[in-house]
């Protein structure tokens, strides 16, 4: 195939505006008659709340304080609508939005936040996903904390382990981390020349934001417009709604532009995190290093909201057996609510955690069998025509062996003893 443009190192089309400082991120936009907004967030992880904004409302320069009473449809969420725009009765995590102050300037916003009275009637929280799965655990939503349970059942693992020469069992734990994109969340809302509620934001999916804004405000989607400014990194952290609905609501009610910029600290508590996972693995291989069975139980802490929990734990489950052909596989991956910060999409989306387990298992098996790490992988890896643990046939474009061989070639891998 002759290609003229694809495959060429065309210079990035957005680079010029970025090296000259002309690229506008939402916080770089200033409009006439613009107000500022700031979010009041829960200070405790699990409590019933009563909110009194009356004192703060009387502060000079405060225009309006929005709470759940002001939201036509007080819910949103990428899969389950389990977030409230503003918590109405209960907070489920530190950082849950309770109110949105709109004032003439930022100083007034801060003053107003200090003067909103929130009475917290604290409830016992649950912070360990294994505890949260128990029947008597405090419930974050509804009557069970288990959001999702994905299963793979392929072949017969009993038989597979029975025939295994070595079996390796370990539990691996990964932690919660943040995207730490450099540009904290920000946005400006206004009413455009055609009367549309318009929000300038840095988002991964403007059409989704529009849908959520329209739904929460009970407006047709055509009356809402989302403009994506430059986005200062995302990595999955800008998939859930943050300030979009708050800004749209304020502009709709006040008929004025409103701007919100999160501090780094607010950014840390506002957006989703990477799922911590507890991964219990059992892997068996025959004398030659051929994998015969894999059993994995993966528990993912979704924190206070589901966000992408189902999709993330599903992805963990599908990728749990690694890029290897294994005849007998049993995987259970489970997403659980806790009162931790909520977790969602982050680069790798559940498939980043599982190799921490499956690739260490491979090296442990190799050592027990007297094999080197390369050979055991070559014996088991996906190639063209391989069938995955879910029964999918990899019909083309499977250059895993080439990837491995090219790394090994550069690093002179198998001759480990000689190297030291």
């Amino acid at each position: 195939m002759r290609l003229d443009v694809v495959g060429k190192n065309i210079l990035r089309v957005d680079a010029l505006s970025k090296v000259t400082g002309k690229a506008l991120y939402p916080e770089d936009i200033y409009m006439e008659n613009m107000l500022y907004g700031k979010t009041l967030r829960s200070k405790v992880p699990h409590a019933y709340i009563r909110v009194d904004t009356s004192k703060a409302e009387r502060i000079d320069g405060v225009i309006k304080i929005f709470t759940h009473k002001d939201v036509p449809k007080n819910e949103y969420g990428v899969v389950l609508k389990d977030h409230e725009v503003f918590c109405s009765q209960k907070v489920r995590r530190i950082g849950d939005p309770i109110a949105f102050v709109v004032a003439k300037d930022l100083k007034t916003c801060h003053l107003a936040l200090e003067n909103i009275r929130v009475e917290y009637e604290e409830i016992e929280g649950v912070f360990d996903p294994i505890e949260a799965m128990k029947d008597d655990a405090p419930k974050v939503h509804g009557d069970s904390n288990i959001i999702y349970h994905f299963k793979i059942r392929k072949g017969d693992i009993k038989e597979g382990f029975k025939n295994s020469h070595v079996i390796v069992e370990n539990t691996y734990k990964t932690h919660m981390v943040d995207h730490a994109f450099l540009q904290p969340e920000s946005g400006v809302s206004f009413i455009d020349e055609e009367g549309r509620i318009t929000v300038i934001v840095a988002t991964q999916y403007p059409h989704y934001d529009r849908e959520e804004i329209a739904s929460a405000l009970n407006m047709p989607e055509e009356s809402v417009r989302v403009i994506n400014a430059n986005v200062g990194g995302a990595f999955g952290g800008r998939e859930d709604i943050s300030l979009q609905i708050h800004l749209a609501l304020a502009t709709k009610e006040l008929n004025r532009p409103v701007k919100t910029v999160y501090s780094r600290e607010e950014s840390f508590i506002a957006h989703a995190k990477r799922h911590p996972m507890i991964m219990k693995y059992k892997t068996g291989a025959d004398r030659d290093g051929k994998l015969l069975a894999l059993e994995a139980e993966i528990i993912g802490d979704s924190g206070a909201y589901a966000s992408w929990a189902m999709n993330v734990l599903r992805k963990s489950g599908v990728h749990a057996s690694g890029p290897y052909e294994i005849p007998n596989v049993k995987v259970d991956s489970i997403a659980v609510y806790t009162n931790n910060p909520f977790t969602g999409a982050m680069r790798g989306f559940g498939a980043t955690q599982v190799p921490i387990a499956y690739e260490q298992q491979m090296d442990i098996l190799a050592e027990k069998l007297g094999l080197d790490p390369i050979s055991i992988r070559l014996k088991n890896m996906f190639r063209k025509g391989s069938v995955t643990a879910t029964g999918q046939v990899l019909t083309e474009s499977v250059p895993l062996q080439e990837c491995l061989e090219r790394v090994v070639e550069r690093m002179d891998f198998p001759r480990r003893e000689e190297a030291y």
Partner: protein
Amino acid sequence: MVKIDLLVNGKKHSLEVEEDMRLIDLLREKLGLTGVKEGCSEGECGACTVIMDGEVVNSCLVMAFQAHESNIITIEGLDGEGSLHPLQQAFIDAGAVQCGYCTPGMILSAKALLDKNPNPTEEEIREGISGNLCRCTGYNKIVEAINRAKGV
């Protein structure tokens, strides 16, 4: 209010500023220089880097009144009439830009480095930009860009 005089990107300004105003707010809000970015507000990320009397500073840690009688360069002051500064061009050519949020601060730190040390080693380059965080590029193409720009 405090009255201050300062030179920003070669242009004289005399302004009244509030005592608790930071330099970053002065540059962004009063002078409209929004190429100065705010990533952390505690001097850790370097997105707000500007050059003040030849030294890089985090403009979120400098108070506006402290900039009295100083000479400030921001990203907006780097390119001349229709031509880019060699570092700006090198950042484009080497593919050193991704989301772009760290880019202005990164380029200014690189400029301050090259102004003092026109031929830095790779290690000196890495050290020179170690106060500027980037979450996208892994820094390698940024280091390459600075390498390209030295001596231009």
